[in-house]
């Protein structure tokens, strides 16, 4: 199913910014919020994993319901997971389209990757503290 991805600050993501290797940060940054009707439609429940795909990449996240979101709109806090699927195109302004990325979402059994592993996919070497 097609969705429009919006990203932004959340207090939970903000709370764990200085512990980015922690499971709490992972949970805060890799949760995708979705209208409950949409969840029914793609047959996922709270905590289930989904694969989110855009033109530039794909990433696995876990779902959480949010009735405040209109249908076909999803929200992820800013961070490495949402940025895995946001394009670096800035339209000559320096600023990527963090607010409007078209994505498709489907259920998956794959795990949500830890931050270090995700950066490993980008060519980095995970550092475990």
């Amino acid at each position, binding site marked *: 199913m097609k969705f429009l991805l919006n990203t*932004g*600050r959340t207090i939970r993501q*903000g709370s764990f*910014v200085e512990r980015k290797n922690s499971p709490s940060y992972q949970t805060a940054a890799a949760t995708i919020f979705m209208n409950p009707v949409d969840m029914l439609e793609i047959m996922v429940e709270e905590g289930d994993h989904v694969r989110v795909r855009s033109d530039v990449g794909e990433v696995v996240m876990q779902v959480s319901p949010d009735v405040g979101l209109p249908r076909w709109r999803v929200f992820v806090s800013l961070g490495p997971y949402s940025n895995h699927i946001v394009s670096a195109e800035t339209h000559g302004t*320096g600023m990527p389209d963090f607010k*409007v990325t078209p994505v498709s979402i489907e259920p998956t059994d794959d795990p949500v990757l830890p931050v270090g592993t995700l*950066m490993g996919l*980008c060519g980095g070497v995970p550092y475990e503290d």
Partner: protein
Amino acid sequence: MKIEDVVCSFCGCLCDDLVVEVEGTRVISVENGCTLASEKFLGDHRLKTPIRRDGNSWTKISYDEAIAETAEILLDADRPLLYGWSGTFGEAQSVGVHLAEILGAVIDNTSTVCHGPSILAIQEVGHPGCTLGQVKNRADVVVYWGANPVDAHPRHMSRYTTYCDGFFRKDAFKDRKVIVVDVRDTESSILADEFVKVNPGGDYAVLSALRAIVRGKRGIIPPEVEGVSREQLFRVADICMSAKFGAVFFGVGLTMAPGKNKNIRNAIEFTEELSRHTKFTISPMRGHWNVYGSNEVFTWISGYPYAVDFARGIAFYNPGETTSVDILKRGECDACLVVASDPGAHFPKECAEHLARIPTVQIDPHVNVTTHLSRIQIPVAVAGIDAEGTAYRMDGVPIRTRKLFQGQYPDDFEVLEKIYAIVKEAKG
């Protein structure tokens, strides 16, 4: 030991009324702060020593080694990028600009992915603004547009707007009308007297419509503009025009939406239009602690607030070209120094991939997402906790942070000065 009037170093509010209790080199309690402040002060997850990536593993190295290697990496580069700066204090930012100047580097701060578009808009039409106390004491209408203070600036409403009494607003909660404009319901929109829900990417059209209404052109407005009814647009315009003192606060919901700087420009011109009828001001909700300070410091030294390219010796500025995301996306830079920020977390994947490809050095107290992409990381004291210096609040008010205890880490200023000294020696 209890320390009063402590300045928080998390967001652009720079709340300076925290009471922090310290035992030795640990913070044990925080009063008055929001959740973000508490986490910041109580957090105890520092990187202990400088580290270096050797192949697929990490080794601990000394500060001297780390600093010497960093200088070498920067000196070897043909197009180094110095990015970050908002998490540190002005004195360190100043060394950073001079380092960029001597290296012929590009220096950019986190405005690039925050309020960079606001700066571009201000450069087109200016900025009718004020300090936060003006709003606190006077405002009877407050508009949050594309901003969610409850999550991003948790005390903004209680220190400056909705819940804060002022000299001319003795009962703020009753005396002020709050309008929230956003694409989704948020914790902040629940608190609004008037919630305007706009289609994603529709802000520009809504602002144009509001401007036309304020100019007396109601007749042209169609029944609906980007999900907002004509009746609501009229109502919002009327509330604004009948305000005695109105204040617009806008967030990244506006700067990041399609149209970017043009959205902000439209919001500023809306404010200017209102200024012909009554008193109105507009202010960006600057996010990352001292990001506004980095704009200030960059400006008085180089003339430009961010995205400054010294490759040709003189300062050149052109966001979209000299901004970090663009430079990384195009694979231009051949070395990167990251200071007090986390592009690994906050830049799109293509940028992270380039950071991993080139020698990236990070100066930061904590392990963060960029750590995994770096070659070297140098841990430093945390600004506002064990390091002190100047920071600028979102409205331009400069405040000096306190050093709560003497820790074991050098601060950003000391580390950067050492790198600068080596570079200066080499450059003559």
